[in-house]
């Protein structure tokens, strides 16, 4: 009788946790379904190869915005990843207490700063002195958003590498910098790459900080010192326009953006699976 009761409670709790886990991914499934329903019809070859058409002309695509988003992500990564990863290693490995504590605290604050504020910051220190909106300014703003995420995940993952591995390597007479580079980082690699992908996904969809930095562009950009298109900006512009055709394209843009993030996360997962697993 007691055992029956216990089993009943067990089944109920197991069901409850499974249901909660399902609820967590439900929004994602609904978003995907909705995007496919609304946008799939506008996703075609033109969408990936054509520039936007002028108002009133049907068709056209967002090729410039797709390239623009990739360019901005690339720029942000060039700035944000090396700094974030090196800084994260410092936070995890430093024997000093006060400075890492301060940096950690400030990074968490930075992580909480609204992205529009970061846009204004980038506007003030990049756009104003250069007297122009540019891809560079957009990349800079995104890098600032990316930095604290990469910094903190790298730190956490480097910290998770067991001290016993570090000691094993040090005891072999390997200098500390080589221990970090060849033993600690490879062990934490998969986790760090996951963190990097999270930060890339985060910045790929940022709109606000690009409004007055990258600015947007209805045509191909010429060089990184020119305004550049980006998918979120284009989606924003098309979604608030009064034309049904543009609305469909906005949905399609959102769908493509999500698929880009999804695929890159998937590829990163598969590539980093590796022969011998470190930490994930």
């Amino acid at each position, binding site marked *: 009788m007691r055992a029956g009761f216990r089993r009943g409670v067990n089944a109920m709790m197991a069901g409850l946790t499974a249901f909660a886990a399902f609820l967590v991914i439900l929004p994602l499934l609904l978003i995907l379904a909705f995007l496919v329903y609304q946008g799939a019809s506008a996703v075609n070859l033109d969408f990936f190869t054509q520039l936007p058409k002028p108002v009133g002309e049907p068709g056209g695509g967002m090729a410039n915005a797709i390239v623009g988003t990739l360019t901005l992500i690339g720029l942000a990564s060039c700035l944000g990843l090396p700094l974030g990863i090196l800084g994260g290693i410092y936070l995890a490995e430093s*024997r000093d207490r006060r400075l890492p504590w301060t940096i950690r605290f400030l990074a968490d604050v930075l992580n909480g700063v609204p992205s529009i504020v970061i846009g204004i910051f980038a506007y003030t220190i990049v756009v104003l002195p250069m007297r122009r909106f540019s891809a560079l300014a957009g990349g800079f703003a995104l890098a600032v958003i990316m930095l604290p995420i990469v910094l903190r995940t790298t730190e956490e993952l480097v910290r998770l590498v*067991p001290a*016993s*591995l*570090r*000691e*094993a*390597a*040090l*005891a*072999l*007479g*390997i*200098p500390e910098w*080589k221990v970090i580079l*060849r*033993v600690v980082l*490879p*062990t934490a*690699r998969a986790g760090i790459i996951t963190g990097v992908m999270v930060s890339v996904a985060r910045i790929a969809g940022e709109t606000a900080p690009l409004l007055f930095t990258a600015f947007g562009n209805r045509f191909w950009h010429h060089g990184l010192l020119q305004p550049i298109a980006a998918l979120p900006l284009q989606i924003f512009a098309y979604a608030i326009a009064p034309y049904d055709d543009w609305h469909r394209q906005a949905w399609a843009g959102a769908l493509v953006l999500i698929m880009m993030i999804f695929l890159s996360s998937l590829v990163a997962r598969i590539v980093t699976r*590796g*022969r*011998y*697993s*470190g930490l994930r």
Partner: protein
Amino acid sequence: MADGIIVRQLNAWFGALHVLRDIDMAIDPGGVTAIIGPSGCGKSTFIRCLNRMHEVVPGARAQGQVLLNGDDLYGPGVDPVQIRRRIGMVFQKPNPFPTMSVFDNVAAGLKLDGVRNHAHLDEWVERALRHAALWDEVKDELGKSGASLSGGQQQRLCIARALAVRPEVLLMDEPCSALDPIATAKIEELIVELKKDLTIVIVTHNMQQAARVSEATAFFLLGEMVEFDKTPRIFTNPRDKRTEDYITGRFG
């Protein structure tokens, strides 16, 4: 030339905690020296001072003199990295590098020291694995993950990894405490084999193990070395009352 390890007035601290007090000891070259004592008596700290691994822990420091064949390991300008190449270490829990294959685990010390020559690496890795009595078990799967081996095999892999850089001394910090009796017996056989070429210092909780493998035994208590003598003497006719109490199981 080879006059073993001579320790003079060695003291060690964790922060303000004084964990080793005025240790004096002369460890003969070749053969096995066992360090026994209850938990927290400083025996692990002691051997970690011998290859300057103690100072790796934040807040830890050591003071005194440790001479290896005449060279002061704590002398001014001495690089701990160079010390650790001469004095290998095996830890309590097997700790192979999880991202590396069996081969790369053994080759790690050499590769990270810049050895690129494949023929040399192959030769040295095989020699180290044979030396660690693991070669026959892994020779067909050198490419497999080091972490996929059994616990006892992993520990012998760690021994092979330490041997590959050809140290003069091998420190073993309770190398069998995470292993079953069969794996333990294999490691003990291995220790008896290895002492022909190396000086071995082993920390153990297992007094039978100390009696089986070592020539000399030191008994540590509360950060002090109570007694250090030939192993048979320690176990049959100790000078100090505290040693006798410990080996007869009256405390600790």
